[in-house]
């Protein structure tokens, strides 16, 4: 039993994957469906009359846009909650004693937890995107896959960065709720820096909805600055988190 297998079992046996899959799966299906049938839905629930003409007919990019808009909020929230539960390894002191007294460096404990949390989140995100793409293709028509893949990978980079922030929060607090609130607070506050126009292209939060932009033709190079900042701040976050975990007393 290695620490890597421990984390695999944690996700499988505690059914953390169910929560992630349910949220991403739901939006992967409802996103393209909503984009395709929004007019019919609104007519069915109340009748739009002449206003129906004002609702544009759905196009392929709308299927992905709907999916991205939803998972950017509730999907990210679920990822943060699930990751916080995984990364908070000092929550139960007795189990923390078991682990901490058996490794030379607490960073040995953090790495498998971070990688497992990220892999599960990324896998579910990719599967969700694949389902949304397939349904979009069936319901709304073909979509250029190149920009979709690039935009999705940029979104994956954001997820990995957001989970790194969760790791930092887990080094600050031992309680899952505090970790979630701290991480969400940071993730929500950072885009506010985008109000300073020259800062906006540098913010990692730009990566979150990148796929929505790339499938509409925006060059992926526009996101390189955000990607670079995410990489540098992510490395710094990792260094800081491991340093704090090494010195934290139980």
């Amino acid at each position: 039993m290695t620490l890597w297998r421990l984390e695999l079992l944690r996700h499988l046996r505690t059914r953390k994957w169910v929560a992630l899959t349910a949220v991403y799966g739901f939006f992967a299906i409802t996103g393209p469906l909503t984009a395709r049938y929004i007019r019919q839905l609104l007519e069915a629930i109340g009748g739009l009359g002449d206003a129906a003409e004002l609702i544009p007919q759905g196009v392929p990019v709308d299927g992905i846009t709907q999916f991205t808009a939803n998972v950017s909020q509730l999907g990210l929230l679920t990822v943060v909650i699930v990751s916080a539960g995984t990364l908070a390894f000092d929550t139960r002191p007795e189990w923390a004693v078991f682990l901490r007294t058996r490794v030379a460096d607490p960073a040995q404990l953090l790495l498998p937890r971070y990688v497992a949390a990220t892999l599960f989140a990324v896998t579910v995100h990719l599967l969700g995107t694949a389902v949304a793409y397939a349904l979009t293709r069936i319901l709304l028509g073909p979509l250029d896959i190149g920009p979709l893949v690039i935009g999705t990978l940029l979104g994956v980079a954001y997820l990995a960065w957001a989970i790194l922030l969760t790791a930092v929060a887990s080094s600050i607090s031992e309680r899952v709720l505090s970790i979630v609130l701290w991480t969400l607070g940071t993730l929500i506050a950072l885009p506010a820096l985008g109000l300073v126009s020259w800062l906006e292209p540098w913010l990692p939060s730009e990566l979150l909805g990148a796929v929505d932009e790339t499938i509409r033709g925006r060059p992926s190079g526009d996101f390189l600055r955000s990607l670079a900042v995410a990489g540098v701040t992510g490395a710094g976050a990792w260094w800081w988190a491991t340093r704090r975990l090494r010195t934290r007393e139980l």
Partner: protein
Amino acid sequence: MVAVDDVDLHVPRGSVYGLIGPNGAGKTTLLSMLAGLRAPSAGEIDLAVERSRVAVLPDTPKFEPWLTASEVVDLARHLVAPEQPSSAVGEALDRAGLAEAASRRTGGFSRGMLQRLGIAACLVGQPEVLLLDEPSAALDPAGRREVLDLLVSLAGERTVVLSTHVLADVQRVCDTVGVIDRGTLRYQGPLRELLAHVTARYRLVVRGNPTGLVATLEGRDWVEAATLTGPGIIDLDVVDAAAAEDHIAGALVEAGVALVSFTPATDLETVFLEMVR
């Protein structure tokens, strides 16, 4: 406030060392520092063994409830002693009396089973020293007996340091003790020497007229007091335990009473209370 001050533990190899003290005396803090879980605010901690050879068990061990007992011990083996064969897992569980529960998830374990699982997870790493914090404090009588029996079986094989305020446990399993109070070590050494520091007490149960025996005993210079406490029962406080054990038979013959039992009645609690008062 200083929790632990200038403590120097001398723990004989292979002994079961009981660290005793009232609540708040600094026992858990001391063990935490020895385990590397806390850093001293000043000064240094020197261990005579490598820290990697020290296994630690908290007072109420808890494990991931979705792991089986076998997986917990195997994780410990992998982290501490990966060179040990996987069969060591089964051996450790067997030693702790958990062989039949090896494939059960720990979420359904009793406190006693969790405690024994914790000890198995310690043993699988072949540690030189086991640090156990209040190993029987949260257990029911049956669980307590199981854990104490397991600790007794480790004597001579591993060095065990356990903290507790349950003095009966110390008297049962420990051969060496350290008395800590307000962060300082008041005494450490063999348990029997600690007990000999105070007036030894024996309980005599006799058949026949005990009044004559009481009078006889009170005339001996090794007797401090002889008190009739019940029908045929005499509590005997002596100033010299060895003399008492040598001469009690003569006193019985002289008084013409038959002996039913002659047992030491000095307990650790008496000694402990005298030391920390």
